[in-house]
């Protein structure tokens, strides 16, 4: 058997020759190409990066100082009724205005954005991990393991999300933001668990899984090496969308008074604190509101772009 004549090298073979040096794309690179072409998603990515960078660099993180010289905890004299001074090309003294007692509202909104993003990303990552593992194990193992895991999932689903989160968050209210994020993760993994289980149920019947079992591969290796990488599309899309919903959930919780506690702020808490001032000082509502809208919308757009990029039915050229 020689290697000199490879199949496909004669002119009447229907098998395409394997090109030696042309650029080839892995699945990941194909996805990346499609994502970059999605204009809405790319614009949203830029907006989100801009918001994140501004929130971090403006007031700084922890001991590190930022470029904005005012502190979100210190009140100063109220200038011009606390009106925003932001113009088209200038920030002014208080770009987003001042609150009722004279704190700089730009610093407050930036701090709120930091906290909201922190909560959202932590929730997104944690709930994705929990949901993926539970869904994958349930889908692959079937039998009583699946029954227990999926009934647990159903249990979490049937309890109203907001009520459950409020009760747990209240109990852990003085533990800080991370505990809050953990609580939110514990109540929001269910959707992903069901999605992943569904995917795994169909993947486990595919022949490459049967082939892996036939050579004696262990269940753990089959789940984590063979099956999960094939559900990465579902997982990433769902993770992105869960980040957006975590922001809104945290907002609702804080608005109801169960989330982030004063003197720390989050975007939701800002809105709730100043709801009475809406008629007299509308900017106290508008700036955090617009910020929530921008973050949630851009993350949703990114999720949309990812979904389109992962969906093989889109612009499929071969196979």
């Amino acid at each position: 058997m020689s290697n000199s004549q490879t199949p496909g090298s004669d002119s009447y073979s229907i098998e395409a020759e394997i090109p030696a040096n042309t650029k080839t794309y892995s699945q990941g690179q194909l996805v990346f190409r499609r994502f970059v072409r999605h204009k809405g998603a790319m614009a949203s990515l830029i907006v989100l990066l801009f918001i994140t960078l501004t929130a971090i660099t403006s007031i700084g993180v922890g001991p590190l100082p930022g470029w904005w010289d005012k502190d979100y905890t210190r009140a100063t004299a109220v200038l011009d009724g606390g009106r925003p001074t932001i113009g088209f090309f200038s920030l002014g003294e208080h770009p987003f205005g001042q609150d009722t007692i004279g704190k700089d509202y730009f610093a407050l909104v930036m701090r709120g954005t930091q906290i909201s993003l922190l909560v959202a990303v932590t929730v997104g990552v944690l709930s994705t991990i929990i949901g993926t593992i539970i869904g994958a194990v349930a889908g692959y193992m079937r039998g009583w393991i699946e029954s227990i895991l999926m009934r647990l999932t159903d249990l979490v689903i049937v309890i109203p999300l907001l009520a459950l989160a409020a009760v747990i968050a209240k109990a852990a209210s003085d533990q800080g933001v991370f505990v809050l994020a953990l609580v939110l993760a514990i109540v929001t993994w269910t959707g992903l668990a069901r999605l992943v289980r569904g995917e795994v149920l169909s993947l486990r019947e595919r022949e490459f899984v049967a082939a892996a079992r036939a050579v004696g591969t262990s269940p753990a290796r089959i789940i984590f090496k063979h099956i999960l990488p094939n559900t990465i599309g579902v997982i990433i899309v769902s993770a992105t969308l869960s980040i957006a919903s975590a922001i809104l959930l945290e907002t609702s919780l804080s608005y109801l008074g169960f989330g982030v506690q004063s003197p720390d702020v989050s975007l939701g808490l800002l809105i709730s604190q100043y709801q009475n001032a809406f008629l007299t000082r509308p900017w106290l509502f508008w700036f955090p509101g617009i910020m929530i809208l921008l973050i949630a919308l851009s993350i949703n757009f990114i999720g949309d772009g990812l979904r389109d990029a992962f969906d093989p039915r889109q612009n499929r050229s071969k196979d």
Partner: protein
Amino acid sequence: MTSPQSRVPVASEPVLEFDNLDVKFGTEFGTVHAVKGISIHVQPGEVLALVGESGSGKSVTSMTALGLLPSNARIGGDIHVIDNQVTSMDDRQLRRMRGNDVAMVFQEPMTALNPVLMIGKQLTESLELHDVAHGREADARAVELLRMVGIPEPERRVKQFPHELSGGQRQRVVIAMALACDPRVIIADEPTTALDVTVQAEILDLLRSLKEKLNTGILLITHNMGVVADMADRVAVMFKGNIVEEGTADEVLNRPQHEYTKRLLAAVPHLGRGPQQFGFAQKAVEPLRPGQSLALDVQNLVVEYQRVGKTPFRAVDDVSFSVAPGEIVGLVGESGSGKSTIARCSLGLIPAHSGTVNILGEDLHSIDRKTEKALRKRVGVVFQDPASSLNPRFPIGDCIAEPLVVHKVGNRASQLARVEELLDAVELPRNVINRYPHELSGGQRQRVSIARALVLDPEFLVADEPTSALDVSVQAQVLKMFLALQERYQFACIFVSHDLAVIDMLAHRVVVLESGAIVEQGTRQQVLGNPQQEYTKRLIAAAPVPEPGEQRRRREERYRLLAQLGDERTELKLN
């Protein structure tokens, strides 16, 4: 009506004509030129077979006649259906033409029928849409159509759903739907590919009587040369968007002119010619040495599938056979005969209900995990669908090396060396190591599957329909390679296939299965050359051969056999 025996079509206006048809698709990676200026026509009462392998553009051609291509297609040239110029029609005119003048019979009857609608409803729908009949009249016509295509008890069938019918009956319903509005031309896109051979023969009989009795023109799209020999008046061979050869069935199949047609015909496995046709002499199986155990020993195997609220379904019923070391045993049977279940059970993927399965002397179902893993190291497997049997996230090199990694054989360097050795053995270039399965074609992927199965040097290989998803020319290459590898590595093998010709090429012994039970087993010469059982005879008689004269003779013989067995031959029943 033309005489049934007329092989030369009478000169008349063609019912379907493609003139210099050209189709391009715009895709993510540039333009794909699918059809490159072809001209063919179909006369009334004539079957034109459009033959080609995947990617040749034959289905695209047929879809243009119905105006059913996706929006990224650019169509050039002229298409005429009777007097209609298809390319210049708007949606309304297209809808009126579809069904009325030209109808389609699809490959997979289960997906071509709507599973939530009753058969009758699906038939009357097109009648009512095209104003042929309404209400009761349409219902009566639906019953009549079913009777025409030979479905027993049509009054009861119209109230049933597609899943209550067998595959062959479903395809008859699809043909009845196509006939509903008396189209002048029918496009049949691989109408029998999803069906068993005996059912395929019946459906082909039905289509044949269609052109004889209704003078319908048929454009038959297929990759199966046997079907072509059985059906076609004229043949057009397509290769990469071009028609490379066109002529009568006799001319093209018996005296091919073009190089591609010659290769295609040479690649078709021919039932009755054995392993010699690809230049292999079958080596006799050596007798069992003392102390050596059988590769596979199945005794009284029963496999049952549990069903909720019903008695379990018995997929395999009391099956006993064995495979000696170095022997290839062919498992044949139609769909539902339990051949794949036996293959999977002998891999331990499905538990046995009763009976024993001994692989290489050990019972896979009753040993501990460690022995099991050691045993699995000595067994390889190749599955049917090359698109699904390789992990799409693994590069080819990792796919092949996976069994080595699982069994911790060697280090990275020695694993790589072994992978390269096997890529050479399956005749793939070494640079595919870093490529992904989606970059390879079906045949190349199946070579990768075979390389993976052989990487641990197995003593026993399970091949579950390894070539049935491949094109003929690719199948021929893979089979040749498989035989060469078996000669070199001397593994024992059970080879599952529904294609008797493939089994005839490589098996030492043959086991014929019907609904879970063994009908007949013996050496290849005994079973295929001199079958004793009625089922085996039917199976062999129904398998078409790619030579029109011989096929005609076989067809007559089959009709005789059917008459002898008291069966009716399938044809269109007109009142």
